[in-house]
């Protein structure tokens, strides 16, 4: 803990990350405070002679529209960006939690199970790790019905394809933990496998799994942004940063601010989470003090 308090990168990262989480959590309030919502078109503020680029400097930034307008539609960018934070962070956090749950389950089962269970589960993990995640996720997301709840679906798909790493780490740690004397003592006093897993193994897994999960979170955010960028993410009009950047590919010549605002926020958020993950790793896992693995 003391090491974390002295880690400047961690502190800055944690501050920005917390701010972003706050923004995502209070998106409706923030949009209301700005007096805007993310669906209303403001055609009158667009320059129709230039194909719908916002009027005014810097993408139409004004007292009414704090971050300007979306080119083409004139929707308020501030409202879209804060709601976009909700999607990006929500999906990434959801996917990470699911991945950790699946990974812990499979990893401890493999580590504590017999040779057969371990063999089969390890094969399964290898298979999952070898999957071309992005390619399969695109196919999956394109064929499920459009009216299913999209963010939930995104989180599930990312998690189902991405739990391999957590499972591998969990298995490895479990294999070393199970040889400890206190585990043997628990077994001798008649504890069942489930009780051993929960009471003896799980506490020992906290540090390695937590550090790994902290790094998974920004990775999942990148995946979500990528999927939204490719058009298989959340459905319009729900905004997400990746989806905005995808629209921006056709507008960046006329309206660079439309790239810079969602892109900058995405980068800042990702960077802050990576800094947090890096700080956690250094504090909790002193064996590997090297930057990121």
């Amino acid at each position, binding site marked *: 803990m003391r090491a974390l308090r002295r880690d400047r990168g961690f502190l800055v990262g944690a501050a920005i990350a917390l701010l972003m989480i706050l923004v995502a959590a209070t998106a409706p309030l923030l949009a209301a405070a700005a007096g805007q919502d993310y669906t209303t078109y403001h055609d009158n503020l667009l320059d129709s002679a230039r194909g719908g680029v916002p009027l005014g400097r810097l993408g139409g930034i004004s007292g009414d529209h704090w971050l300007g307008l979306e080119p083409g539609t004139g929707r308020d960018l501030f409202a879209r960006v804060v709601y976009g934070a909700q999607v990006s962070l929500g999906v990434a956090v959801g996917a990470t939690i699911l991945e950790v749950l699946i990974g812990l389950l499979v990893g401890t089962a493999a580590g504590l199970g017999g040779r057969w269970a371990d063999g089969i589960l390890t094969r399964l993990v290898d298979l999952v790790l070898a999957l071309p995640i992005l390619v*399969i996720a695109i196919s999956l997301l394109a064929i499920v019905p459009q009216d299913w709840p999209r963010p939930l679906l995104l989180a599930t798909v990312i998690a189902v394809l991405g739990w391999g790493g957590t499972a591998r780490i969990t298995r490895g740690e479990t294999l070393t933990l199970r040889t400890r004397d206190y585990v043997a003592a628990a077994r001798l006093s008649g504890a069942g496998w489930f009780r051993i897993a929960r009471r003896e193994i799980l506490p020992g897994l906290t540090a390695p799994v937590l550090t790994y999960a902290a790094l998974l979170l920004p990775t999942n955010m990148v995946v979500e942004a990528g999927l939204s960028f490719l058009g298989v993410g959340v459905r319009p009009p729900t905004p997400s940063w990746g989806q905005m950047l995808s629209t921006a590919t056709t507008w960046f010549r006329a309206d660079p601010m439309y790239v810079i605002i969602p892109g900058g926020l995405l980068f800042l958020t990702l*960077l802050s989470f990576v800094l947090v993950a890096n700080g956690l790793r250094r504090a909790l896992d002193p064996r590997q003090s090297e930057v990121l693995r």
Partner: protein
Amino acid sequence: MIGYLARRLGGAVLVLFGLSLLLYGLFYLAPSDPAVLTCGKGCTPERLAEVRHAMGVDDPVFTQYRHFLEGIVAGRDYPAGPNTRHCPAPCLGYSFETDQPVTALLADRLPVSASLAFGAEVLSLVAGIGAGLLAGLRRYRWLDRVVNGLVLAGYAVPVFLVGLLLLLLFCVQLQWLPFPTYVPLTTDPLAWAQNLLLPWVALAVIQTAAYARLTRAGIQETLAEDHIRTARAYGLPESRIVRRRALRGALLPLVTLTAIDLAAIMTSAVLTETMFGLPGVGQLLVGAVNQIDLPVVVGVTLLTGLLIVIANAVADLLYAAVDPRVELR
């Protein structure tokens, strides 16, 4: 060695088998009927049945899948009106959308993705090893910091964001480079490289940081070893020590990483190609997915799966080749 290769091959076939089965199952469960899309508006039930038969989607899913597997191994015949048309051995079927053989489509698009992946890999290897070497020798402290920062940033920035910013800077603001369009290497090598430069850089940023970090760590680790001290005591010139001894040890992990990364780049090229509008395999996939073009989706997925499996095997073999301590099991 032979046994190892056989086991590896068996595993690879199993992975690809599982992948194709997964996709077939999913598309079969999918609510949209590709035949309806192909048949178009004003489709009569008789015509629809004909189309379904021609596309081979009127059979139960397991029969379809069996036909698909047979097609890969031995080729297969498709009903086309009164005649049949033959699709030779590694047959992945015909695109529902364009009616071209999937293998031809893939062969058409692969050079683009390969150009992208190779260029980016070469660029990141050169830049990464160079920066890592300088940082590792502690010649430039600031470089060490830059590498560290890049590693963190590289982990955090998605390819398409780098791509967008590069386009914004070099094509719009400075106007130094044209907007990327693919020119085949054989047509005009200079135009090929010029057009692919930005996509290469966008892809390379992240890898460069990773390679630089690895090289730096490797160099520092090897320089601390006993045999280096011995070499210094013998009075060998420092440049020779670095080149012949330290670098060699430091680059070992890079060998395997390169093979794996090449395949990874090909997969993540979905984003780069879409971003820059390059007609590669990734773009083919995105288009096919939106049109529910099952044969193309399965074809692309199998191809990327195959590439990853091959890359992993090559990485293992290379590792055993460069490091005599490693034994293949």
